[in-house]
């Protein structure tokens, strides 16, 4: 199977919800690419909406469904964490705006279905950044480095936060 064909199959799946008519074995490439770009869950929810899940081979369905379970759990968690963040910042009179991923989920916008997150983005007034950082650090939130792109785009009141958790690597 040539690369061009894989790309065009993925394109029609992702953009038009068209399920490619390919041999079962060729689904390996499609699932592989969708996993790499974190789109397995998004595909699941879009196909579910169009009632097309039953048209998938069970191999593709199980991988998409599994990713959908993970993504649903994450959006539940994002809603919960956003409430907490808001409460913590409100108590210090810091006004903030949720951006990007978390805000899509809060708004339940179309592109939020199946999204996966590594952090929650918050915009605060520039002069309140360090106060916000300190306040959130007390509640076990860590800042992540803001990328050049984000820095430029949001003219830096942007803070990226994720939970400071211990690694679970040693369990495997």
């Amino acid at each position, binding site marked *: 199977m040539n690369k061009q064909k894989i790309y065009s199959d993925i394109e029609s799946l992702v953009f038009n919800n068209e399920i490619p008519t390919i041999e*079962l*074995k*060729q*689904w*390996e490439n499609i*699932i*592989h690419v969708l*996993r*790499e770009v974190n789109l397995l869950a998004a595909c699941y929810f879009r196909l579910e909406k169009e009632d097309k899940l039953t048209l998938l081979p069970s*191999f593709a369905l*199980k*991988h998409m*469904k*599994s*990713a959908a*379970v*993970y993504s649903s*759990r994450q959006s*539940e968690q994002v809603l919960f964490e956003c409430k907490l963040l808001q409460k913590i910042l409100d108590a210090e009179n810091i006004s903030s705006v949720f951006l990007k991923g978390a805000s899509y989920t809060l708004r339940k916008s179309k592109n939020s279905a199946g999204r996966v997150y590594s952090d929650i983005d918050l915009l605060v007034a520039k002069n309140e950044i360090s106060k916000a950082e300190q306040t959130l650090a007390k509640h076990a939130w860590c800042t992540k480095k803001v990328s050049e792109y984000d820095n430029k785009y949001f003219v830096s009141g942007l803070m990226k936060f994720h939970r400071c958790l211990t690694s679970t*690597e*040693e*369990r*495997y």
Partner: protein
Amino acid sequence: MLIDIGEYLFRVDSAPPIVKNNLNLMYGDAIINSSTAPADFTISLKHDSLLRKFLKPQVTFYLGNNSPFKPLPASQSYPVMEWGMNWCIAATDFNRLIVHAAVLVKNNKAIVFPATPGSGKSTLSAYLALSGWKLYSDEMAIIDLDTLQVKPLFRPVCLKNESISLVKQWFPQSIFTGTAKDTQKGDVAHLKINSLAEYKTFSPVEIVAIVFPKYQKNTQTEPFKISKIAGFEKLAGNSFNYNILGNTAFDTIQKLVERTQQVEINYSDLSDVDDLLTSEFTL
């Protein structure tokens, strides 16, 4: 190279020759060159750079282009490959409940041994598996959310430290990889248990008991029942995906503890444990 471990199909994109040799030793017939089925995971184990290949060599495990672990010394290559395979399953399969546990089966009745610290889980599962029990897994219990049955995986047992020489002493014919020294789990070697032909006769079975073994020197083998709540807590705590499955995991574990017995067993003698488990749960 493709490895068919039953529930999952791995495509090994690249791996150092010593890892491939060990894979051949451990998986044998389950290694195939081509398949009509699509592979679930494309994995590889790579040296980090040409320089690193010679100077304190390290390897990194990849699922696709992503690596879940930091690079580790090349002397640990084979364990890293096995742990990487475990990670692929635990980190991506949310269609069943996956518990960090060994699963042994007799008379189509499964006993799940969650991996509580100090349990001697792998030594016990190696002993039982080489004494007539069927090894469904040394590392993870794959539990169907609807039927609550546990599914078999075709994998070796991972033995650590003193238990490596003990098992070699008890079962001199057993097939081992070399021992990787000083890993994060100490010295580690893998042990082949089933042939593929044996494994193919295994099918999903009911779980009858959740057993928490506790190795204690010079103790009499003694079982005691624990409360359903304690059993629930320990199962949930040892599940890889309890937090992701949420309500579904809660319901599944609740049904499991209601249907099975939960027992702690203090032991020092493995054949006593074998007798006890056989008479208590599998007849």
